[in-house]
Each structure stands twice: as C-alpha cells, then as structure tokens.
C-alpha cells in the first residue's frame, strides 16, 4: 500500500514529460520493437526491519539485471513485458549446533514478472511495471532449503538515453522496486542498453 504515493508520483512525472514530441512522431515515425537490457547494483531497505537473524541490518546490498521488451507505436506510449533477476541479500551467518560448524549461507532473490508501460519523450523515458515477483529464499547449511512464493509488486523506472548508433542507445536509469507484502524498497542505479529489434 505504501507504493501508492510513489505510483502517483510516477504517473505525474509521466504526465510532466508531455507530448511535445508526439506531433512530430505521429504519422511519420514508424513503430518499433525495443529491447532493454539493464544492469546495476541495488540497495534494499527492509522497511519493517528483518526479524532474523537477530541484529540484522535493515539495509542490504545486491544487484539486479532487468530485461524489457517494449512495443513502441507512433506516439509517446510504449508497452511491454519486464522480467529479470534481483539479488536482494546474500549473507553468511554462524549458528553453531551439535551437527555442524554453524556456517550458514542465506539469500533472498527476486524475479519480477511484470507488464510495463512507459512514456518516451526525446531521450527521456519514464515508466512503471505492474505485476509481481517470484521471491526465492535459499538457506544453505549442511543441506540446501529453498522456498519460493509469488507476491505482488511494482517497479518504477526513469532513464535518459544517448543514441550511439541508429538502432542502439545507452542510458542511465534509476530503478525503484517495491515488494508490498514484505515491505522491501530497493533502489538501483543502472546502465540501460536499448536496441531497436524491429522497425516497421
């Protein structure tokens, strides 16, 4: 529920990007199918804290890799699918018991599966992904325990692109992930490689 103010903000930003270029695009600019590959480090904040292990930091570091496939017709809007991989936290703990030395490796991963909508004005792109995450917890002791669960979530992203070639551009992107059920807010500065797969 805390995603709502952010959603409003992103929608307002989307609006603020306006339609100045829209007339120029309309009727003269072909349709595109664009692929985005995005990579970067990611900082996650567990808004309600982490109950286990005791004394764990609220903030963790990880990384993410996102892929977006977008259909961009002759106006500002583009729609598509967003997925990828996010490592939220990976830590080693010592929990000694009678059977082992107590070294435990635990990690939390997320795979977003979302419908993405973005608006592109000149070199600026602002968008929102709606859908969910497949969250996987892995606990590696003497054996490995793994648990997965689908939860709703949102991704907001804003990027500025520089065109390198006719079909290739490079962008700097800010990506914000929100996982409502667990109260995780993750922020990732990313490199966004955009390639026009198809123009018609």
């Amino acid at each position, binding site marked *: 529920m805390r995603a709502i103010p952010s959603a409003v903000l992103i929608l307002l930003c989307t*609006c603020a990007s*306006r339609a100045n270029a*829209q007339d120029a695009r309309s009727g003269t600019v072909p349709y595109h199918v664009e692929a985005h590959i995005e990579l970067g480090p990611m900082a996650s904040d567990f808004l309600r804290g982490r109950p286990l292990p005791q004394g764990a930091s609220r903030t963790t570091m990880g990384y993410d890799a996102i892929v977006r496939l977008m259909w961009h017709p002759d*106006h500002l*809007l583009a729609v598509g699918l967003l997925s990828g991989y996010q490592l939220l936290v990976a830590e080693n703990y010592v929990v000694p018991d009678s059977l082992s030395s107590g070294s435990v490796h635990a990690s939390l991963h997320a795979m977003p599966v979302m419908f993405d909508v973005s608006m592109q004005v000149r070199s600026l792109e602002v968008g929102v992904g*709606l859908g969910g995450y497949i969250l996987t917890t892995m606990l590696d002791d003497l054996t490995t325990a793994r648990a997965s669960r689908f939860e709703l979530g949102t991704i907001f992203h804003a990027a500025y692109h520089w065109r390198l070639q006719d079909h290739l551009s490079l962008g700097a992107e800010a990506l914000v992930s929100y996982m409502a059920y667990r109260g995780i807010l993750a922020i990732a500065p990313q490199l966004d490689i955009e390639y026009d797969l198809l123009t018609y």
Partner: protein
Amino acid sequence: MRPILTAFASGLLLLWSSGIVRAQFSSAASQSDHLALAKKDLLADSSRYFYNPRPLMPGTAVMNLGISLSLLPEPLVEQEIPAPAIDFQYKRGLTNSLSFYATVSTNYFTNVLMPGIQYNGGDDGLSYAIGNGIAFFAGYIDLGGEFDRNSAAAIADVPILRVGHHFEQVAVSLSLACTYVLYADTHIGSLEDKGIKYKVDDVWLTLAFEQPFYGQTRISTGMSLTYSRTPYQIWMLYNVFDQYLVIPEFFFSFQL
C-alpha cells in the same frame, strides 16, 4: 495615343486591384475557414475523452472498453489480491455544458451500473465538471455449504467533481467522488444485514491519463484510490473491520 495609354493603365489597375482583392478575399476566406476548421478540430479532438471534463459537443459521444484491477486490502485477505473487472464507459454531450455519462463494471460476481449527469466547463487549460450519478450494485456468489446463496444489492448517490488539463495530446484528469448509500441489503446464507444504509461508504480519487496510443487509437490509463468502510469489490468476504480501508485500482481502456 492617350486613350490607348489610359485603357492600358486602367487594365493594369483593374488586374492589379482585382488580384489584390481576390488575393485578400481568398486569404481572408481561407484564414476564416482554416480557423473554423481548426476550432472544430480542436473541439472535436479535445472533447473525445471520458475522464477529461472538457465540454463535449452536443450529440457527440465517447465510449471506452477496458479492464480494471483492484487490489483487495491486506487486512481482509492476508495479502493484496488483484480483483479484475471489465469496464464500459459512455459519455454523451447533451448541451454545450451538460453531458450524460454511464459506467458499467462487472466480473460476474460483482456488478455496478452508474448513470449520471454532469455540468462541464472550462477549456483545454483548465476544465472542470460537477456531476451526480446513481450507482446500482448487485452481487451473487454461491460458495456452497453454510455460505450458499450469498447476495448483495445496493443503491447509492454518487456526487463527483472533476478537474482536467489538456496537454498537447495527453489529457490529465483528477476526479473526487463519494458514495452515499440509499439502500443496501446483504444476504450471507440465512443471515441478512442492512448496516451501511444512509452512510457515506466510500470516497475515491481517480487520476486518469488519456492519449493516443497507436494511429488514431486512444487509451485511458490511470489509477484510483478508494477509501472505504465496505469495499464493494469484496462484498462476499466476512468483514469484521469497521474501519476505512484503502483500495488501489489500476485501469486501462481503449476508446471505441
């Protein structure tokens, strides 16, 4: 010689003046036509949206068909669950200021019909509307066992206030509305409840973006935030929270 020169000069003058007059007349006429067409286009273009409160030209209509996803509140369903619905919206200009609107929303178990009238004013820079609708709600679900034959029906008065701004091709609108329940009756098996009658049950805020998507096809996208004591989307659940809950809703519709 003099008559010839006079005739030649007169001819030149006539040609020149007629050319000027014709050009001026033609220019003025074309400017006037162009302005009239531009104004007509502007009116026709800017009025072709459902949420944007820019006055509709009398006789013109807008129809949207799309889907909405409401996130059911966490306190009632343990974790947020999306509840989908199919939405149909219709708006027709009655006069330069008055328009009729109607919305239908259904997912089979929950059905809402809301016709209304609104007064529109303003221009592309700032448009506004104040309206009132009557919402008819009906729901039915058979869960079997002790909870068979669950049904709900309600009628509510829905005043609404809209403001909007039209960018070059993106129309942004903000709507604020509430429901005052005039009649409500819920049956859960053999139990009956009329608890929310004569109360304000919901207040909601809608932010909508309307724009061309591809070619001449236009879409409406946006979200609503509903602040409700008894969210109609989950009428079939046993709600013991006598408190206001927040229900976000995302919508996406195509203009027909």
